[in-house]
């Protein structure tokens, strides 16, 4: 009798015994497997985020250090270091800041970008003074990152970058950098469908954005 035949006999017996004894061939299995995840600063992460552009710094973008000692992108519009002269945003105005930061796709798949402002601006609960906060493509405010720019095939391929501009519209209230006025931006990248696979998703929360018009809170 060849081994192959014998093995089939064993399997059959096991199944038969299982049916009668209420215990199957494969009652329990446990497998320990190695799993590791590296965490990186924004410059080296899968969704690369760098202040300014490759050729030019922006006074409105810098980096800050997390509890895990990683450097992450931070935006500021409060007349802080790096800015010259002005102390912040005026009332009832719309400001556009081109090319504030750069997003580089350092992952293996093409991604589309969108953003979420939290909590919603001008809600009466915080963000007094900031009516609207938008992100747009480079130096073109018409190409909102949440608009048709990305829907129109504007994905970022592996190794590719786009620069991002910021538009802030203020109302007639004071814009302060008090903690309850901080704006949080979630930058979300969604992997393009590849071969029926789902693609990855990433939401990176930028540190609270400092905005001020130089007047004291009130």
């Amino acid at each position, binding site marked *: 009798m060849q*081994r192959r035949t*014998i*093995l089939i006999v*064993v399997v059959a*017996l*096991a199944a*038969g*015994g*299982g049916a*009668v*004894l*209420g*215990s*199957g*061939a*494969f*009652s*329990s*299995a*446990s*497998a*320990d*497997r*190695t*799993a*590791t*995840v*590296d*965490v*990186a*600063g*924004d410059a*080296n*992460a*899968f*969704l*690369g985020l760098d202040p300014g552009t490759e050729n030019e710094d922006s006074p409105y973008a810098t980096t800050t250090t*997390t*509890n*895990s000692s*990683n450097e*992450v992108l931070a935006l500021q519009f409060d007349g802080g270091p790096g800015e010259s002269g002005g102390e912040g945003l005026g009332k009832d105005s719309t400001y556009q800041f081109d090319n504030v930061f750069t997003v580089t796709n*350092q*992952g*293996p798949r093409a991604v589309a970008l969108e953003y979420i402002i939290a909590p919603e601006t001008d809600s009466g609960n915080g963000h007094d003074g900031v009516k609207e906060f938008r992100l747009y493509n480079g130096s073109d405010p018409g190409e909102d990152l949440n608009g048709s720019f990305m829907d129109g095939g504007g994905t970022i391929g*592996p*190794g590719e970058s786009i620069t991002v501009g910021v538009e802030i519209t203020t109302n007639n209230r004071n814009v302060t950098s008090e903690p309850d006025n901080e704006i949080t931006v979630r930058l*979300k990248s969604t*992997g393009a469908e*590849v*071969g029926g*696979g*789902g*693609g*990855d*998703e*990433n*939401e*990176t*929360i930028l540190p609270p954005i400092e905005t001020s018009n130089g007047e004291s809170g009130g």
Partner: protein
Amino acid sequence: MSPSRRNVLIGIAGSAATGGLAFSTGAFSQVAADRTATVNVVGDEAAYLALIPGESPHAEADSDTNQKLEVDVGPADNNESYAGKGVNDEGITRFKDLFDVVNQGTQEVEVSITPYKKDGNSNDVEITDGSVAFYDQDNVNGTLGEAKNVDGTSVTTGNTLDVGLEVDTRGDNSVSDLAQIDVEATARNNGGS
């Protein structure tokens, strides 16, 4: 501690022996002799509890460890080319299609996946802060940050559980301490052994 695959296969042999005695089946000693030859440790893709890398580049069958599944979210390997070194700090990242758990046994099983880190004495400690979730892709909240580890998900014979990974690096977290996962499958009606 849970049985290793080698033990599981020996357990199968035990079932066969019990069944044989109960039915007074003949020619059993010869079968037993050959049965030892069946205690093979196979690569994960061929095992009764099969662990098969998905489309994500971050899981693979490691040729250095007898084709065992390995999850490695980090810099690109030899056959890949991307510049990223890891997930963004202060963010949430979901990797879809990381690996499949396939029930290639003969019974419906309940699958659970538990992530572990090492403590100062190299002991395995379960990660319970929610920062690492190996989730059931067919049953997950669409909001990033809300995925949960697979916990008792039923997988019938021949069927597949698609597993994704969500890591949440907001605040203090255990993401970079992740060292291993335990994939457990227990047959239903088995008393939860």
